[in-house]
């Protein structure tokens, strides 16, 4: 305890943290001049290092936060390192782009300094994701982890930074706020040196990011309805739902919240859900679930990311030992019904509806409560229903006949793999897609007179930032040397391994 009462005007650490942004700014200035070859070399190294640490950080994240499942976190860490780089390796966010027909030359310009907030629920996967995106786009990044996961995140960021710098990245392009606090985060978000805030986390943090006065990419919370209509393959639907809801103890924002099922197939679905480890709570016990898991109507934060068995214990329920998901039936999707809200643990609501129209209405009602702009899922074989569902429900992605956790996050669909789900205008966000590298650059366009008589210049072989003619010939922009066949094979191999593991995990 200090002998002197200090009157503090700035939050502790603010000056030091502002200096991190300044250092990042210097690094970004240098990074912006890197060519694609150097960027690829850095990402090859970072993806490898990140993947190599996937297990260790999965264990440490679970140990530090008490949330989630180690093996699922391993998978996410791999997905957001090697998997992410495989997805984007052939994309170029660096080199000049030439459009001869339009007579426009485009130069990718990085944002500069990214201030990235990462959540406690998916700590390391989100750190991996944002750092990789920053590197792909030649941005510097300062990561501010959720205080509940600060140790593992700091370690991961230092590891990534070391790997990047060893591979030639500019010193200081990846940094970590070691002791995050709300006043400190506010100070960093509003700092004029921050070029863009990328906020993943609770609603308050995201709103603060948008209030910061700096450009922000923030995403809102989810509350995922999963509609099973009468045309669905019920057995497959039940398997997908249970696998997805139990994945990492349901702490992804894309995890299913409520299953809405047409009455006609409801009993069949319940049977199938039970078969895969779903435990349907008896009608007489539902109130007990509300009381113990949602005291005063609010989800118990200490139960986030806990297993179904731990939830059952907390709710004083007796359940079979193989229970993976608790399922609580209720009838009305309204704001005062706690079971109709987002649930970051393996408890699923279940609502029976008489027909498709009522099912879509129930899903709409869920998104009125929370989660607008986020994601929904549907299990159906009717294109008409799927399209009507997509049109009516206020979300920006619907995953079809697949678990939503990894479906909307891009692992089991062809959506962009992401840890940051844009919720668009519905969800008061500036981005409506899964966050991608291209969101972190601007394109500077050099445009020529449109008149056909005015010729366009030949930019082939020219490198930005180089004014004097180079002594040695340099590679043409855009056209990159194709990856060696061995590399392609290796990556295909790794992709297969990841897919196999995914299948394995979602089958259990």
């Amino acid at each position: 305890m200090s002998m002197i009462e200090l009157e503090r005007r700035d939050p502790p650490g603010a000056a030091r943290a502002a200096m991190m942004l300044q250092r990042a700014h210097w690094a970004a200035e240098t990074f912006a001049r890197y060519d694609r070859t150097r960027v690829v070399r850095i990402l090859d190294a970072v993806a490898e290092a990140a993947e190599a640490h996937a297990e260790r950080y999965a264990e440490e994240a679970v140990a530090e936060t008490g949330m989630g499942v180690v093996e699922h976190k391993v998978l996410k860490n791999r997905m957001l390192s090697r998997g992410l780089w495989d997805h984007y390796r052939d994309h170029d966010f660096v080199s000049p782009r030439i459009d001869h027909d339009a007579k426009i030359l485009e130069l990718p310009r990085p944002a500069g300094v990214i201030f990235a907030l990462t959540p406690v629920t998916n700590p390391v996967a989100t750190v991996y994701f944002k750092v990789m995106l920053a590197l792909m786009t030649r941005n510097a990044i300062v990561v501010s982890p959720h205080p509940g996961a600060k140790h593992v995140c700091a370690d991961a960021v230092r590891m990534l930074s070391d790997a990047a710098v060893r591979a030639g990245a500019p010193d200081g392009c990846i940094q970590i706020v070691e002791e995050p606090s709300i006043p400190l985060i506010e100070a960093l978000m509003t700092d004029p040196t921050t070029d863009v805030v990328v906020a993943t986390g609770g609603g308050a943090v995201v709103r603060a990011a948008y209030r910061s006065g700096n450009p922000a990419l923030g995403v809102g919370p989810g509350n995922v309805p999963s509609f099973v209509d009468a045309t669905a393959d019920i057995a497959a639907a039940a398997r997908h739902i249970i696998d997805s809801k139990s994945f990492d103890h349901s702490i992804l924002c894309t995890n299913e919240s409520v299953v809405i099922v047409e009455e006609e197939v409801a009993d069949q679905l319940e049977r199938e859900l039970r078969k895969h480890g779903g435990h349907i709570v008896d009608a007489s016990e539902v109130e007990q679930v509300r009381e113990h898991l949602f005291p005063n109507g609010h989800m118990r934060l200490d139960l986030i990311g806990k297993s179904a068995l731990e939830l059952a214990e907390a709710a004083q329920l007796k359940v079979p030992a193989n229970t993976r998901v608790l399922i609580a039936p209720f009838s009305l999707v309204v704001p005062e019904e706690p079971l109709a809200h987002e649930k970051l643990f393996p408890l699923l609501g279940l609502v029976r509806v008489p027909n498709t129209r009522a099912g879509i209405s129930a899903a709409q009602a869920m998104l009125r409560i929370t989660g607008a702009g986020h994601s929904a899922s549907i299990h159906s074989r009717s294109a008409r229903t799927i399209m009507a569902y997509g049109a009516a429900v206020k979300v920006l992605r619907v995953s079809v006949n697949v678990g939503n956790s990894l479906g909307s996050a891009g692992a089991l669909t062809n959506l962009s793999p992401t840890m940051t789900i844009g919720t668009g205008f519905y969800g008061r966000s500036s981005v409506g897609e899964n966050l991608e590298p291209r969101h972190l650059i601007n394109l500077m366009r050099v445009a020529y007179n449109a008149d056909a008589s005015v010729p366009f210049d030949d930019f082939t072989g020219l490198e930005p930032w180089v004014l004097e003619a180079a002594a040695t010939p340099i590679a043409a922009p855009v056209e990159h040397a194709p990856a060696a066949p061995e590399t392609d094979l290796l990556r295909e191999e790794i992709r297969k391994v990841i897919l196999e593991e995914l299948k394995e995990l979602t089958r259990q």
Partner: protein
Amino acid sequence: MYDYGFFSYDSKADMLERSRAFWNPDKTDFWQDAGIDLVIDRREGYYLWDMAGRRLIDVHLNGGTYNLGHRNPELIATLEQAMQHFDMGNHHFPSLARTALAEALVKTCAPNMRRVIYGAAGGEAIDIAIKTARHTKQRRKIVSLIKAYHGHTGLAVGTGDDRFSKLFLADHPEEFINVPFNDLNAMEDALKGRDVAGVLIESIPATYGFPLPEPGYLQGVKRLCEQYDTLYIADEVQTGLMRTGEMWCISKSGVEPDIMVIGKGISGGMYPLSCVVVSEECSAWLKEDGFGHITTVGGSELGCIVGMKVLEICGRPEVRSMVHYMAERFQQGLRQIQEIYPDWFVGIRQDGVVIGLEFNHPTGAKIVMKHLYAHGIWAIFSTLDPRVLQYKPGILLSPELVDEILDRTEIAIGKAYAEWKSMSRQAVTA
């Protein structure tokens, strides 16, 4: 009317007149004659404002005093907080703040360093260093470099150029030997009589225009010191505190000094302070007679608390990283300017953000200084080699400000070049 609350002046002319009348007529006139009509008013970060309201970027920093910028908010907050509990302290007694800074400082130095002795200013610290060396070796002679400058106090002034010592009859050539820089033979000649207490040397001589030590020179001096049983005293007043990309410039050469002198920047420009760090051998008088050197103001506790903050800021990895970036940017930018005026802008001496710019005229730096001033930059010529401009940017600059400094410098050097050319033409026709 310029009303500053504490005092007021009718006009800038009135201020200068009263400055001549009550303060220092020669110094006041010197700057007016040199075309630098600066009376510093507001100051913030790396900016100064003249009384007339004109903004200047400070690339002089008073020799690194404002290394962390003027009125650095962290230092203001530190000093204000310290004043809630401390004052200057009482030099007679063991002191909380002096001990804490000493411990922090020793940790940043070479492993042989043990204790810290305090002063109020760089000159006093040099005096302390000389007294310490004399006590340790029981010899009087001190060797320093020709064209050196180590301060104006009693002993320090004797080590420097005649320019400073003769005025007050303070030259003592029998005790203070000067040898040429980068000349190990001359150094050996001065030391081989084994009657020298210490060699006092700036790691890069500032007032001489930052000529860089040749590779191996400082190590050679250290070797000679060991050979002839004399002490190596490193003057880090202008080169310390991360200005060369490391906390202490001397550490880059691998030399472990016996005594190290720290001043200017350690005050943060906020509260006067200087420090002398000494080895165990040089601590002898502190054990024999701790009252040997007394200073009421030196090592004031407020100064020590500010000094600790300065040390902490300078030691941040962020700062080290940024200094390396900005040094590289200055190097590139200055080289580009040099390519335009190769016969005029003839040399760049640089180690980190310790930079000397050499021009092809005996007082070339004075011409450039004047044009820089006209273009919004304050940088000063080297007193003992006015061909060289001391170009000393801060260590917390942004890339944008570095670019702005370089833009202004390019124009000013161009204007100075034109003036030099017309001078040369006049000289030919005359």
